[in-house]
């Protein structure tokens, strides 16, 4: 993989490494879903296992409290059978009822989607959860009992787990075998959160920038500044430890764009907001006319080409 030479390039590489499943609906506007990581899915799985186990335990306790007498052996037997029958049906029912989300997936913000972009079919949900037994539960219980396994079976187990990991790691959508069979994949549930528009706050007469001064930065720097400003809204007092950072950023920008007028330290935040707005208006205008500037090195391409 290519080494990143600038922060902007590093950010681009990081974004490339994040896996997206792109889906084009009939409206023709591609929609991106972020494919869930295996770690995230393991977390959801563990939450589900704990929930089902607690559920089975609760049922056994209730039955044990009922008037008729049940010995310890019978209770253990019952727990054994229950944990077997609560498992697959639990996943199938929850994924059917909540459109691809078990309780564990709800907690961790994941969901199952059909790979063809249509609704989840009953067949798909049943198939992926039946194979979950072979892909998750049986190897899992065998790992727990691995001390009593012989050498041959330990090797078989290792090979088996290797296959189970290789399959999802070698396809784009991180599908496990059950997902491939059911034609489904797991994505992060997109979070809906509308933040205020930064360009509409704050007075802008105090700082005025010329077009020359706005030529220096690109989209990446603008959005980095946006992140900084979202952490420091105009209408709130600046946190002590942030003030120094803000002043430093302000000074750096002034130096880079050649902004000569002195800016007082306590006006640093106001300056940055005003600069953000002016820079964004400038870059958006450029973009509208086909001049897309991804970062401050955007001129390099023109020079070399």
């Amino acid at each position, binding site marked *: 993989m290519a080494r990143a030479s600038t922060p902007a390039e590093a950010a681009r590489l990081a974004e490339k490494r994040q896996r997206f499943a792109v*889906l084009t*609906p009939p*409206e023709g*506007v591609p*929609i*991106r*879903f972020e494919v869930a990581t295996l770690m995230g899915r393991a977390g959801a799985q563990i939450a589900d296992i704990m929930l089902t186990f607690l559920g089975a335990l609760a049922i056994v306790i209730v039955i044990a409290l009922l008037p008729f007498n049940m010995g310890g*052996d*019978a209770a*253990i*037997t019952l727990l*054994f*059978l229950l944990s*077997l*029958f609560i498992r*697959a049906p639990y996943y199938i029912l929850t994924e*059917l*009822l*909540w*459109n691809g989300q078990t309780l564990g997936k709800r907690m961790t913000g994941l969901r199952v*989607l*059909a790979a063809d*972009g*249509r*609704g*989840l079919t*009953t*067949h798909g949900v*049943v*198939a992926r959860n*039946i194979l979950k*037994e*072979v892909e998750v539960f*049986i190897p899992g219980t065998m790992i727990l009992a691995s001390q009593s396994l012989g050498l041959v079976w330990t090797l078989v187990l290792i090979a088996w787990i290797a296959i189970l990991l290789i399959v999802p790691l070698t396809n784009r959508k991180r599908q496990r*075998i059950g997902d*491939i*069979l059911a034609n489904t994949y797991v994505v992060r*549930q*997109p979070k*809906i*959160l*509308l*933040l205020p*528009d*930064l*360009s*509409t706050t704050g007075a802008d007469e105090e700082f005025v920038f010329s077009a020359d001064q706005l030529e220096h930065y690109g989209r990446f720097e*603008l*959005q980095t500044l*946006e*992140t900084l400003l*979202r952490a420091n809204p105009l209408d709130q007092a600046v946190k002590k430890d942030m003030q120094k950072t803000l002043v430093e950023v302000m000074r750096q920008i002034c130096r880079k764009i050649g902004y000569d007028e002195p800016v007082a330290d306590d006006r640093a935040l106001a300056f940055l907001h005003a600069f953000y*707005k002016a820079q*964004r*208006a400038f*870059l*958006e*205008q450029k*973009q*509208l006319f086909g001049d897309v500037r991804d970062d401050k090195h955007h001129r390099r391409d023109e020079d070399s080409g």
Partner: protein
Amino acid sequence: MTDVAHIRSARFREQREADWLALEKLVARAERGAAAKLSFEESRELARLYRSTTTSLSVARDISLDKALLAYLEALVARAYIAVYAPQETLSGVVSRFFLRSGPRAMRRSWIGIMMGFVAMALGVVIAYALFMQDQSWYYTFMPLEMAGGRHPGASTETLRDAIFDTGEGALAGLGIFAAFLFSNNTRVALFAFSLGVFACVPSFLLTLFNGLVLGAFYGLHESRDLGYEVFGWLSIHGVTELSAIIIAAGGGFMLGLAVLFPGHVSRKDALRIASKDAVKLAVISAIMLFVAGLLEGFGRQIVQDTEMRIMIGWGIGALWLAWFLLPGWGRR
């Protein structure tokens, strides 16, 4: 602040924000499982807002550099897409459709896989029985010790009889856990026979064969003590259902394996996907049968002590399964 003071993308947002928020509300309602409860007006509104918001997203990608706004629109459109195109499937009719049509049909379509499973198991029974009759020490080769539960060629005929009729208070009293073990063991065998069939049928064949070997040796042991008829009854009451369940699960595995071996005109991945439609139904049928078998094993075998009765119950239920597989769902659609 006046409209003019805002930059273009901020004005763009101001004009459409109300629509986005309305869509957000509708999507949240639809996701709460109320998609079916949305009124006609609301569903139409959902579709309209979804379409206008996809347009907003498309425009925003071009004109806006506001990262937060882009992330919001991406997420909103993605969630709305799911609400519009991939909503909660209605579950009514899924169960009855399975029992009345799709289940039996899948069974009949998969007859070749089920036959293969049956042949593998029968082969195992015959081999083990023949070998055991020649030399009793074969028993230890076929029967895993933890499954034998004290029943081996060294045991006395009385012990074996007690195990069958559950009169003894001795070594075999804790039959509950043993039955549960056997049962979960068979569930596991069924599961493996099903899912490992993908590897060109071989594991399914071996597992079913091995199951047949155990059965053959077990039967041979009792036959040699003149307990053949009794053990036949003991096995019948749950075994007809349980062994059929294993054979059916293996049948599903064979169908998957056959799809991998002979994909026909499509790619192996697609062939597997198509075959899985029926195979998964076989697995569900097998799970249902195993559940019934578990009940029969846990209760029926202890309560019913009469051999004739055991045979009648076992094969009667077997006939019911067969009727379910053969009779419903012949009509077109």
